[in-house]
């Protein structure tokens, strides 16, 4: 047997750091252990800080799990509810893990790891049996599903900072060790929900599916009827077709392909294409097949990508380019590029005159040492950084709405990249060349040039590592330019986005601008006028039935599931249309990685089932308007302001009052402190 593609695991490179931090942890544990009960709390601070530093290291969870008994005996939980694990309630763990207080999160996390140590038999606890501990953790997993596979939302990042990532890593560790049977159904449902948004980055989902696959292959596990639909997910990665059913490894698969006739190859091609378009996931074997088919026939190549007639035409018309793209960018490690390429061809953007030559330039592009270093740091050395970047180009051009901001406050930059990939792919490719080759972008702001090299700082304070290849190297430059444009507006009255957005995103971002928040006071202003103009510009019934032509930047006030204000956030308004139920909805792009968010007061962003295209989020027009605080419009196109019904405006204002506007009502009504509205949204 060859080397199965599944599973792949992490490399132990951070061992030295972990060892050091464990020494500090053990010292702090010891210091607490020898302290008297009444002095335990004097030693707590250091113990918690050293725990946090261990937990953020690879291997940290296992190490703390192994020390669970020592930590408990030393008195970590002394004087708290966690001191009596036998009475802890699984349903309450979520609140602890999502607390704003980092120490509460840590205590909760260590308590979970203690349960895990008990469940696995490492720690024979006097009051909790292994079975009880296992049961407890299953319930914790089931009630906090989102922590398993979505990166932190805007709300969580604002509230918890870096702890938000820690709880996710914790859940991964718990899931892998507890097993998924109790939560499998909901888990699978969630994975499908995420995949229906067709994100570019699927590593997290792949990892989960891999874990489920490993878990299912354990003969001791009795799954019963659980996990409907999980087969399709697993097989789309590791056993999609007849010839790779048992995950034989790429080399074995290749030799099988060589022995096949055209009929059998047709079978393989169709099988992979179906799976890919069904799930959005691409098997490493699929990449191998594509490479193999380069020497076979274009017919089979088109079959293997599941192309539409447009895509097929495109492939034949740009035959040499497509072949070179596959040769350079499609490898088992970059299999997702197959999906990107297929959709790129289906979109027909190669027919825009500059795109094909720009892709040829991209293929031959020498990368700067810095760009190579960044890519290698994030993705490793195989395939080469250039191939990795090219595969990223295919993905972003194929799935413009699949761009995510990762765990970074750079929604503006992610939105710009997505908008260009969607609307102006040629420009995106140009920007990418400047960054990848020259390490510099120069943009112009009101006639003055701004270099991404001169600007000192952006919105983000650290370099991202959790992004797709294109975003990874472009975002830091865009972020600095965006921040610099904001700085050049300092001192002007009003919101800087009025000037920054059109200059930053492109000419199509309209110069007309409205905001319903007074920058000075943070209070709501001109609410009704704001809403009427929005209707007149965007709603087909009041704008002369004109569909939106270009994607437009917009700003929303994000609220949490209790409708409390969280922060300003950048989105793109893509289109306004009627859904299958005849409700007029706004379809928009949200650079957050999961658009399906509950904004409270019944405002739940839908991502599928209401006429959404892949990657779109949508809300009924009214509800969307109730969270909007900034939009652009063309002042020369006047809609019917007066025809917008008053009761509709009133309903929207009701939504606003019940959520983010509650403490922003103009003076005379409720009083509240001004929010930091001068800060750019992130």
């Amino acid at each position, binding site marked *: 047997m060859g080397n199965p593609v599944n599973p792949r695991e992490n490399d132990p490179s951070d061992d030295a750091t972990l060892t050091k931090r464990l020494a500090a942890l053990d010292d702090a544990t010891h210091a607490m252990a020898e302290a008297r009960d*009444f002095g335990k709390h004097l030693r707590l601070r250091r113990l918690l*800080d050293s725990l946090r530093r261990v937990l953020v290291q690879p291997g940290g969870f296992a190490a703390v799990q192994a020390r669970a008994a020592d930590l408990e005996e030393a008195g970590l939980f002394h004087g708290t509810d966690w001191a009596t694990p036998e009475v802890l309630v699984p349903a309450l763990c979520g609140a602890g893990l999502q607390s704003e207080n980092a120490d509460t999160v840590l205590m909760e996390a260590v308590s979970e790891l203690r349960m895990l140590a008990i469940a696995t038999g490492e720690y024979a606890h006097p009051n909790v049996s292994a079975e009880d501990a296992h049961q407890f953790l299953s319930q914790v997993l089931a009630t906090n599903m989102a922590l398993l596979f979505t990166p932190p939302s805007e709300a969580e990042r604002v509230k918890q900072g870096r702890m938000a990532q820690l709880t996710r890593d914790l859940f991964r560790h718990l899931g892998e060790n507890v097993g998924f049977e109790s939560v499998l159904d909901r888990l699978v449902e969630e994975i499908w929900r995420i995949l229906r948004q067709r994100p570019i980055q699927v590593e997290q989902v792949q990892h989960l599916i891999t874990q489920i696959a490993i878990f299912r292959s354990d003969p001791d596990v009795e799954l019963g009827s659980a996990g409907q639909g999980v087969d399709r997910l697993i097989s789309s990665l590791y056993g999609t077709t007849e010839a790779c059913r048992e995950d034989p490894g790429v080399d074995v698969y290749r030799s099988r392909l060589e022995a096949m006739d055209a009929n059998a190859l047709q079978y393989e091609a169709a099988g992979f294409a179906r799976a890919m378009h069904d799930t959005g996931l691409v098997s490493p074997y699929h990449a191998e097949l594509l490479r193999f088919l380069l020497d076979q026939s274009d017919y089979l190549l088109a079959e293997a990508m599941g192309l539409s007639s447009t895509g097929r035409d495109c492939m034949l018309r740009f035959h040499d380019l497509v072949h070179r793209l596959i040769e350079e960018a499609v490898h088992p490690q970059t299999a997702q590029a197959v999906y990107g390429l297929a959709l790129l061809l289906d979109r027909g953007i190669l027919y825009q005159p500059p795109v094909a030559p720009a892709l040829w330039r991209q293929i031959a592009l020498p990368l700067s040492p810095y760009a190579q270093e960044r890519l290698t740091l994030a993705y490793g050395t195989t395939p080469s950084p250039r191939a990795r970047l090219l595969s990223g180009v295919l993905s972003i051009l194929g799935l413009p709405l699949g761009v995510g901001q990762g765990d970074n406050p750079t929604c503006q930059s992610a939105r710009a990249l997505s908008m260009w990939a969607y609307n102006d792919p040629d420009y995106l490719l140009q920007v990418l060349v400047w960054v990848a080759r020259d390490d510099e972008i120069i943009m112009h702001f009101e006639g003055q040039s701004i270099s991404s090299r001169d600007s000192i700082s952006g919105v983000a304070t650290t370099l991202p590592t959790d992004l797709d290849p294109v975003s990874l190297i472009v975002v830091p430059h865009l972020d600095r330019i965006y921040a610099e444009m904001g700085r050049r507006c300092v001192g002007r009255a009003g919101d800087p986005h009025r000037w920054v957005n059109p200059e930053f995103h492109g000419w199509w971002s309209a110069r007309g601008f409205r905001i319903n928040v007074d920058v000075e006071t943070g209070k709501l202003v001109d609410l009704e006028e704001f809403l009427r103009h929005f209707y007149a510009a965007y709603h087909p019934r009041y704008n002369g039935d004109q569909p939106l032509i270009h994607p437009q930047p917009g700003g929303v006030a994000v609220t949490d599931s209790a409708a409390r204000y969280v922060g300003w956030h950048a989105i793109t308004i893509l289109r306004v249309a009627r859904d299958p139920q005849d409700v007029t909805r706004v379809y928009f792009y949200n650079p957050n990685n999961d658009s399906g968010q509950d904004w409270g007061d019944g405002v739940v962003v839908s991502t599928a089932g209401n006429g959404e295209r892949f990657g779109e989020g949508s809300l009924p027009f009214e509800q969307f308007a109730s969270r909007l605080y900034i939009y652009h419009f063309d002042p020369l196109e006047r809609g019917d302001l007066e025809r917008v019904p008053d009761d509709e405006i009133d309903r929207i204002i009701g939504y606003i009052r019940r959520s983010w506007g509650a403490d922003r009502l103009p003076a005379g009504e409720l009083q509240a402190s001004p929010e930091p509205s001068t800060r750019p949204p992130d």
Partner: protein
Amino acid sequence: MSKPEPVRRNPEKGYVAVLGWSLNAVEALDRFDRRYVVVAPDWAEEYCEEHDIPYVSWNFERLNDRSLEIAETLQKMGVDVAIPLYEETVEWAGAINSVLMGNPRLLGQAMLLRDKALMKRRAQLGGIRVGIFEEAHDRDDVIRFLKRVNQTLLKLDGDPSDPIHLKAFDKAGCLGHRVIRTPDEVDTIPDEEFPVLMESHLDGWEFAVEAWVFNGKIRFLNISEYVTLGYSVFVPATPELEKFRPQITRQIEKLIKAFEIDFGFIHPEYFVTSDGEMYFGEVAYRPPGFKVFELLERAYGFNAYQALVLAFDPKTTEEEIDAFFPREVVDARGHAGCFGVYPRRRVVSELSIPEETEDHDYFESHELSAPLEETVTKRTAFGTHWGLVYFFGDDPHAMRGLLKRQEDLDFYV
């Protein structure tokens, strides 16, 4: 790891009283082999009862004809020695010990150690170098001193003056410590701060020493290196400062002789100027602030409060004390340092530990809390920091750089 067993207290060994409330000290004593009692104001009573901590109530601010009472109470209990934990209890310890040990000189010694001006005179008489100093009773005294110091330094009118330092006579550490550069600044000193001690400014490297003394000999001598006074300190010091250890040891021996210190713990501060000359700053007969005891425990692994008890207890044996202390510098497991955070902005809304700090290899822990008020009071004197950040690592130079670097970072935004 098992729960610590209750310590069996050895009746053959001394019985100590600690003066003042410090939970860190009490906790350390509770797991040591000496009998002990805490002498503290009555607000500590409930806590002590709840946790079975031996306790005698005493209000140290009250000074009247009943003051002998506490010495007699402790004597009746069989206590051998009283140990001061704070500046304000130093003369109480002297008074009590003069009764317990039948040695009236101990009170006089304590009074010397409590008054910064007397202390300097005594040091001078003992052949120890000190800077120029004088007492001030009002603002005119301060202006006169400032002018005179700068005349001595041959400054012309209009030259930037050398600063002078003002310190309260009887407060610990940086409390009430001001730097005065111009006569205008003199007006900012509130009346209630007088009288004060004035000192000329010495350009040099300031450091502190912690020395445990028993039977008139130094048993453990630590040199604490200040990176910036009032901000940061670490132990053990860099090799550059440690190379002065022989000279420093001689200075401390002079000090012990001058103040006739036979036992206990001293915490003096010195300057070493660029030509290697050592100037005495002040000395305290109690544990240092800035959590130096905690840093010592982190670096060497011994509990400095227990060490304090050993050095004070007259029944401690030579063997016991030798076995207790590690060897200076060579036995340290690393360098432990801490940084005192002051907000750098006038208006702050939240605590935000810089990632650069939190991710640093040496970072250990912090005890900062979220701000209670948004406006930061302007610092008049050296003031109190908002909390400490702790570091631990192998390289003293990296430690020094790291602590210095923290001064440029915002912990409150």
